[in-house]
């Protein structure tokens, strides 16, 4: 019986090759999309699943008011002493451990070999247990007990000690000094929020290390595994107690320690200073939907073509009904046919997935290995999905066809019925509504990204080298600058507390005006070198620059003895407006920056107003900014070079850095590249979205092609008759396209409000956005229409251009 069914299946496949290929190819494309996106989503959702007891694992993070009077901030790390304070107050913690990561790379040396490595961190010995690492060599119990202990991941060990004998060997790590390898562990998976490679014992830190002793800096990522059945409310109370009892007086009111589930960090963290770029829950949702949409369109094709072909099948079915084959059996056969087609499609999808996977993983910025496809569980999922898809696609045709009355079916008069046509038209309209929505949204996204990438930032980004770990290197900035400027290829050197990088936080410093103590205005603050505005080509509108010739320009911080500090301020145009001044009357006005909640503040006049700049991202409105001259807070340096001789100039910069800071590796990047990288992530997501939109349209067009075939065949005689009586090839093309065109245009019309809603929703995230003109709509509709016309025309042309007699003879 089953061989009979398979034969039956193959016969249909052979007889109706075109329809059948379209169904299988469409389903294969749909299943492949779901498969590949499924892998990506699994990757995103399974982030950090390598931690054991994930349901009880929390990271303690900080919710705090900025210590210089800014707004509340959420920061991933805690002060060094916080963990002991928490352990002293809570009885519900099974194990706790800190990770003190190096920001960027660390220089490592073994013998003569030296390299900068990512992922170096100092950790509590308990971290090994908490993270559930697998030891390949060494003693898990004591691997990090001594100050000179280090544990390497497998790939790090293999890299530095290719002979496989890492245990007991010595390596020199910047800041940690000479350490001995006491353990080798399995690599952390790529989808971990903690991409560690080298774990140095926390005992390596000197006992008097200020970050361990003082409640400052918030650099210790602190993890706790709660006891089973721990109560989060009482844990939170203990955390509050820890701050209240153990934190020093000044910070107590500003700090709050909050537990955040480790499983949510990747997709949902809103903390600053995460070690890995955030995943995006919305992207996950969007890609899932788009992949499912492609599959849905493929299923609609199946329904469409199966019912369209009912005319051909009707006779066979009528015959079977007449000889007494029960309806259930007939429906079963049709369903089985759909499932078999779907299974074949699944096989194709599985074969094609390795080709599609790199495209998706590259664009999504994740690393997905094709071997992931080979897991039995995953293959089972695919099998199940294929069966479900087959059943879903076959259900309606099975019911509709098996319901035919035998006599009618035998006569073959059924499927000319209007209801089948109505259904097919509805499905085509649905498919094109979806396609046009996807197209239009893609086009809007593209236009917005183009707009963002070309937005006038208000400052120069090109040919600018940014050095980032200046504060850690503790270099003599003035001398460093002097030496750099001696090079004729270097145009300018300037420093600031932070560089424009497209990622600035919202305004977080409170300003007041003397005499109006109740009113505060929030602005962003930047500490700069005197030549900052010139170096970035930012226009000074009124007033003067800050000058180190005037001692009153230089920031004098307030302190306990002298709660009123002093500074001179430059404010941006938006800043002046925020404070209630016009650009011209701001100069000379005195303002105060609130420094601490204890009333310390900095007072000084506005000496100049500069043109607005977009230091932040395009998601934010123009920031109101104030600038101060504060050499003690230069964290980054910007060096503008001429485009010529670039390689040598960079080498020169590296060389000078090496001399002034021999221990600390240079961390340099190009400012424009940074901005581009920022856009690239967004852009890549849009590209991915675009590809899926195109796939959806492709599959919809496949279906349209099938329908066009069907209708061309059905109307062959009509085509012949019309040709005989004077219709040209073109007339016939118009005739056959017209009916499809109507459907496509109806789809486009229905798509318009949906696309408008989605596009405006998406655009609302941007403070700077394009106006939604008609062009994405017109273009989207034109594209969909053109593809549909082309699809139909390709199929129809042969029939329309053939000698008329060919068409008449087939009757």
């Amino acid at each position, binding site marked *: 019986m089953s061989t009979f069914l398979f034969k039956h299946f193959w016969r249909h496949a052979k007889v109706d090759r075109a329809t059948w290929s379209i169904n299988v190819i469409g389903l294969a494309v749909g299943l492949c999309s779901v498969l590949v996106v499924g892998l990506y989503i699994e990757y995103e959702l399974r982030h950090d699943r390598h931690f054991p007891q994930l349901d009880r694992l929390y990271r303690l993070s900080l919710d705090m008011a900025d210590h210089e009077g800014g707004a509340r901030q959420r920061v991933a790390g805690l002060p060094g002493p916080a963990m002991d304070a928490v352990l002293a107050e809570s009885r519900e913690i099974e194990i706790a451990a800190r990770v003190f990561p190096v920001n960027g790379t660390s220089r490592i040396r073994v013998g003569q070999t030296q390299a900068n490595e990512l992922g170096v961190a100092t950790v509590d010995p308990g971290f090994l247990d908490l993270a559930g690492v697998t030891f390949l060599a060494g003693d898990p119990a004591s691997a990090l007990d001594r100050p000179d202990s280090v544990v390497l991941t497998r790939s790090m060990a293999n890299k530095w000690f290719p002979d496989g004998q890492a245990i007991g060997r010595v390596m020199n790590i910047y800041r940690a000094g000479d350490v001995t390898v006491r353990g080798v562990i399995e690599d952390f998976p790529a989808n971990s929020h903690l991409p560690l490679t080298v774990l140095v014992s926390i005992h390596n830190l000197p006992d008097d290390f200020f970050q361990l002793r003082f409640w400052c800096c918030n650099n210790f990522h602190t993890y706790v595994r709660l006891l089973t059945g721990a109560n989060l409310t009482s844990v939170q109370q203990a955390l509050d107690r820890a701050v209240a009892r153990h934190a020093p007086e000044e910070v107590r009111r500003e700090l709050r320690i909050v537990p955040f589930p480790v499983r949510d960090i990747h997709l949902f963290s809103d903390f600053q200073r995460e070690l890995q770029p955030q995943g995006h829950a919305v992207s996950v949702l969007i890609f899932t939907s788009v992949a499912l949409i492609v599959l849905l369109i493929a299923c609609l094709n199946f329904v469409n073509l199966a019912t369209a072909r009912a005319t051909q099948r009707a006779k066979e079915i009528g015959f079977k009904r007449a000889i007494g084959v029960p309806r259930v059996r007939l429906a079963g056969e049709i369903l089985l046919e759909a499932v078999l087609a779907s299974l074949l499609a699944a096989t194709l999808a599985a074969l094609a997935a390795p080709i599609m996977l790199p495209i998706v993983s590259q664009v999504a910025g994740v690393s997905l290995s094709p071997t992931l496809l080979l897991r039995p569980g995953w293959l089972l999922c695919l099998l199940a999905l294929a069966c479900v898809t087959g059943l879903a696609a076959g259900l309606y045709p099975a019911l509709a066809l098996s319901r035919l009355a035998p006599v009618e079916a035998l006569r073959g008069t059924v499927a000319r019925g209007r209801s089948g046509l109505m259904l097919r038209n509805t499905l085509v309209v649905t498919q094109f509504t979806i396609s046009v929505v996807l197209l239009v949204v893609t086009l809007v996204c593209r236009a917005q990204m183009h707009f963002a990438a070309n937005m006038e930032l208000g400052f120069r980004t090109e040919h600018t080298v940014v050095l980032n770990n200046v504060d850690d290197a503790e270099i003599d900035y003035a001398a460093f600058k002097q030496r750099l400027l001696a090079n004729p290829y270097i145009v300018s050197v300037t420093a600031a507390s932070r560089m424009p990088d497209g990622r600035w936080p919202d305004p977080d410093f409170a300003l007041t005006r003397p005499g109006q103590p109740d009113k505060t205005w929030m602005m962003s603050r930047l500490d700069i070198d005197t030549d900052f505005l010139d170096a970035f080509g930012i226009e000074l509108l009124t007033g003067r620059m800050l000058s180190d010739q005037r001692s009153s320009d230089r920031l004098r911080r307030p302190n306990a003895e002298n709660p009123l500090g002093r500074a001179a301020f430059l404010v941006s145009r938006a800043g002046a407006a925020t404070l209630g001044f016009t650009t011209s009357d701001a100069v000379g006005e005195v303002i105060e920056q609130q420094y601490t909640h204890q009333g310390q503040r900095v007072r000084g006049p506005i000496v100049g107003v500069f043109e607005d700049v977009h230091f932040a991202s395009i998601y934010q409105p123009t920031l109101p900014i104030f600038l101060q001259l504060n050499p003690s807070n230069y964290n980054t340096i910007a060096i503008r070079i001429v485009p010529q001789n670039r390689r040598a100039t960079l080498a020169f910069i590296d060389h000078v850095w090496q001399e002034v800071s021999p221990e600390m590796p240079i961390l340099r990047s190009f400012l424009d590249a940074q901005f581009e990288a920022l856009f690239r992530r967004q852009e890549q997501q849009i590209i991915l979205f675009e590809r899926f939109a195109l796939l959806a349209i492709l599959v919809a067009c496949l279906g349209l092609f099938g329908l066009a075939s069907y209708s061309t065949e059905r109307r062959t*005689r*009509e085509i*012949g*008759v*019309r*040709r*005989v*009586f*004077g*219709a*040209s*090839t073109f*007339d016939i093309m118009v005739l056959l396209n017209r009916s499809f065109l109507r459907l496509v245009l109806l789809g486009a019309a229905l798509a318009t409000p949906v696309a408008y809603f989605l596009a405006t929703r998406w655009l609302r995230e941007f403070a700077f956005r394009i106006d939604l003109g008609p062009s994405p709509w017109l273009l989207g509709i034109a594209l969909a229409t053109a593809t549909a016309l082309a699809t139909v025309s390709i199929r129809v042309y042969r029939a329309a*251009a053939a*000698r*008329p*007699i060919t068409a*008449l003879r087939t*009757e």
Partner: protein
Amino acid sequence: MIELENLHKIYRRRAVETTALNQVRLDIADGEFLAVMGPSGSGKSTLLNILGMLDQPSSGSYRFLDQDIAGASERRLTQLRKQHLSFVFQSFNLLDELTVSENVELPLIYRPLSARERREQVDDVIERVHLGNRRDHYPQELSGGQQQRVAIARALVTEPRLILADEPTGNLDSANGREVMGLLQRFNQAGTAIVMVTHSATHARYGHRIVHLFDGRIVEQEALS
């Protein structure tokens, strides 16, 4: 009006070659009524299709109104067909979805006429084939004879120089057949040339001349008074 010289039509189907027309020489004058006879498979339909520019000869020359047609482009053929020719088929070839008047109007759609002009011409020929009261019926609702009269109306509506009719009475009983022949004769007398394939010796005698085909060759020509 038409001169055929040494015309051949060869069908190739895989390994099998069929010579459907062999060295055909034939002239047809303006306004002539020509009947073509011959056994089944002798090439009558093939000849008619080539005359009607629905198909191309394999070799030989076909001159229509002093222009060489053999090897002309499909576009050009469509053009000529539209201007001068019209067809009546054995199986009527009416379009089921269209009413009688829509079927008759069909050839006019592809000509630059206003809706009113079309309407008038359609009404006129429908009256001439005596189907005025069936104008809004669908073909399925008519008898075979009535359907063939619709087909004739459709063929006439463009006022062609030549009507090509392939067994127009083949599917009709004798009364209906007579009526159709009467119509054709009347239109021929009004000036339209007709080439008609038929198996009926009686119907062939409506023509001015009978051409006998056998195995793709013209074996006999018979002029009638």
